[in-house]
């Protein structure tokens, strides 16, 4: 846990809420699988930030917020005996090779297709993708939040992107929805 520095000011809170409220909510929802619980967790995270103080530098604050939010979400899972992401083995599990329901039919809808593939990846890979591409965090920051090292984050992201690229390419092979030019 990053070291607390000083109570946060209203301006700091305002900026951080704007920037991180929704990403944190989505992050906590992915961990708990429960939107309402996720809202509580995000609220608690910001209350802790305000009361206890936290780094004011935006990049450090991001790491702080996601770390606190993740810990709180995992605590909820433990307390409520949810199996979702507690089991590290499960978190590292291999992605499903089965096609998504309706993959062939719906692949024409490129928008959102990648997000549907993401849901088939192991939770740990989903987590690092979200931190990287939704929140623009560095490997180092992600490593700190997820309690691992940057090399492991690199492997997770590489593996996840490889799976996405392969599944996307497979879908694209069928993506000849357009008639070929004849003139």
């Amino acid at each position, binding site marked *: 846990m990053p070291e607390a520095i000083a109570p946060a000011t*209203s301006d700091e*809170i*305002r900026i951080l*809420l*704007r920037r991180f*409220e*929704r*990403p944190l*909510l*989505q992050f906590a929802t992915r961990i708990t699988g429960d939107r*309402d619980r996720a*809202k*509580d967790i*995000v*609220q608690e995270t*910001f*209350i802790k930030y*305000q009361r206890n103080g936290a780094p004011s530098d935006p990049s450090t604050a991001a790491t702080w917020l996601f770390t606190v939010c993740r810990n709180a979400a995992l605590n909820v899972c433990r307390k409520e005996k949810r199996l979702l992401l507690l089991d590290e083995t499960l978190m590292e599990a291999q992605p499903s090779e089965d096609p998504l329901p309706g993959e062939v039919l719906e692949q*024409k*809808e*490129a*928008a*959102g297709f*990648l*997000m549907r593939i993401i849901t088939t990846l192991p939770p740990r890979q989903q987590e690092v*993708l*979200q931190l*990287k*591409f*939704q929140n623009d965090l*560095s*490997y180092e920051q992600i490593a700190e939040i997820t309690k691992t090292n*940057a*090399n492991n984050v*690199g*492997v997770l*992201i*590489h*593996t996840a*992107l*490889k799976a*996405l*690229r392969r599944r*996307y390419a497979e879908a694209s092979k069928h993506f*000849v*929805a*357009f*008639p*070929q*030019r004849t003139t």
Partner: protein
Amino acid sequence: MNLDDPKLTAYALGELSEAEKARMEKSVADSPEAQQFVRETHDIARILIAEYAGENQADGQPANLIDIRDDPWFWSRARPLAIAALIASAALLAAIILGPRNLRNHLSAETKDQPGYIQLENVETGSTETSPPDAISNPFRPAMIARVERVVIGEIPPNTPESRSEIRVIEVISDSNRLTALKNRLATNRLTKIVTPQSISHGYQLMFLDKAGTVVAAARFYNVPGAGFMLQLSRNAGTANDHYFVGKEAPLLPADWKGGIDYSSYVISFPDWQECIGYSPGA
């Protein structure tokens, strides 16, 4: 070169140290496969960023809660009061709707399960319906537009299904002056709302390509009688084997698309079309 090296992905995503980056640059320069891998990683990263951004937008607009929530008084006093007020309102409503017999069960469920966060959202956002804004921000990012190196102009043949239209290419613009003018116009910050007249039957499609030939932005160019020439941004566009496509079945372009906005109702005014393109739709 080993394409299954996580360092290659880290290189493509800008995650290597300067020393590692320099080493990797040399290796990539010698390997067309690695260059292709880096391009594909950039492409998939762009799509992911756009899709996560879309997910953010689809998640609603809680920003108007901020001014109240960041006030320390709010946390200590107003929040409990707001919750209490809402519980009281819920109780009154339940009493009216459900009647005395069901009230206790209903209330206990409400007070037990509803976290304060939700209550606050209900209080402050309300359920107002708003009409579409007169102007919205341009979803195409300046950094993406800056990458444009060519613009393909084409026509959409009549009677083509809107969901999958192939463009009949007329011209490819790579002249720097015209290109700069087009990019500047496309980078206009705000899109303005327009009521599109039904009489518009003809337009050109512009496809903005980067160095690798990837479509990074697209727009329809047409004339609105009485209002002038317009650029209407396209959400979906793509290319395959030198063929260009638009319509719902084409890939979603990487941009900050917001949920709930009908982008076909917004345009960029295009007064300098003559210096950019030189001919007008229907001419």
